[in-house]
């Protein structure tokens, strides 16, 4: 049993599948996200795959402050993802709404709607920062740490 658990944890660490969701951001983070697929960064070397359907995904990558138009879709997509799943907030918009804070069209920040596991700061973050953030999310996915313990730990570095 313990062996199986170990194997599953190893597998989760090595094959995270991402679903990317732009909840109304400016595109910047999304371009950097697609740049991660490019030969220079090639996230596939770590087994990371960008999937088209939320039902296949392990990690939900959210970019953009949550606008009114996207909130419903965001919640549906989160519900469609099978457990275990983690949420990564890419860029400053999902974390704090950044420049769009205070606009009546914004429902965000993201943690008001979904539990967020990792925040990646930047406007937009560099591709390597994105990958590092995803790597931390993968560690959470593999270990299945309880959420509140992580919050007490605060910054990881």
């Amino acid at each position: 049993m313990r062996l199986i658990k170990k194997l599953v944890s190893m597998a989760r660490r090595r094959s995270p599948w991402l679903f990317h969701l732009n909840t109304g951001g400016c595109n910047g983070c999304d371009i950097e996200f697609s740049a991660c697929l490019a030969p220079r960064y090639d996230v596939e070397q770590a087994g990371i795959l960008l999937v088209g359907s939320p039902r296949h995904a392990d990690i939900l990558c959210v970019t953009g402050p949550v606008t009114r138009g996207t909130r419903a879709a965001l919640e549906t997509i989160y519900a469609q993802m099978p457990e275990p799943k983690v949420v990564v907030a890419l860029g400053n918009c999902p974390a704090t709404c950044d420049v769009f804070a205070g606009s009546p069209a914004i429902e965000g920040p993201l943690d008001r709607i979904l539990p967020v596991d990792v925040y990646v700061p930047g406007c937009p973050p560099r591709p390597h920062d994105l990958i590092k953030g995803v790597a931390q999310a993968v560690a959470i996915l593999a270990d299945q740490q309880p959420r509140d313990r992580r919050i007490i730990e605060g910054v990881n570095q």
Partner: protein
Amino acid sequence: MSWEKVFFALLIFPGLLYAVPTAWLMLWLERKFRARMQGRIGPPFYQPFFDFVKLMAKRRVLRPSFDSIFMMGLPLVSVSAGLLALALLPISSDSRGFAGDLVLLVAFLEVPSLCSVLAGFASRSIFGQVGATREAILSITYNLPFLTAIVALAYSAQSLRLVDIAASPAGGVRALAVLTICLCLPVKLRINPFSVSNAEQEIYSGPATEFSGPQLAMWELAHGLEWVALTGLVVCLGLTFRTGTWIGDFAIYTSLSLVLVILLTILATGTARLKIQQAARFYWRWGMGLSLVALILGVFPDIERFIR
């Protein structure tokens, strides 16, 4: 065929124990080689295995019970059909087969795509349905040349046994028929330029869109087994000689299958996805043309002799 041999073929070689790792190896090789040709590193070799384990360990999203029977059952049927098809392949020179196993093999090879169509409709998602429709249309278009080529092979060998076909002398008929089957491989494996039914940019993952966790893992495995079975079929039918030893046959069979995977990957990497009409036109024109020539040559062997 004795029972022990059947079990050996199903469970060990070329069945479960051999086919599943080979399926993962082929899936990896396809991804890795594609990545290399695009200037990337690509996934490590254990990738498909860990993908499978991870998907198996995912919790299921609740769905209506009738759907879940279909959604769990269809991938399993698909996987077992792949294994059964593999068990029939005349890889080694001591395999006997039985009369009519060619028909059974063709039927088994069609099961995965049939399952895929059913799964697409059962998933009740619009993308699954469009994917299923496309899969069904494609299966009509490629099956005509595919079946004609098989018929030409069987006719020229005057037998419906795979062993007899594999042992029949090399000639124009056989070359043309195997070439036609090769042409049908990309569309049967749903890779570029004929990846129409799982075109991610148009309809997500087609029939597999609504599947998650273990069900998706089974789909992936079934897909891998299709790779093993189809490349194996081409190698078995195309190879005109057997080494005589079990080990030699095994080595030649495996290595040639892998070469075929690489060739298919090059094709997939160097092309854009065609539209369904264009794919259909291709198969009706080139596939049908080739296979009809093979059939005519097979029915009237005098023509071949005359040409020579």
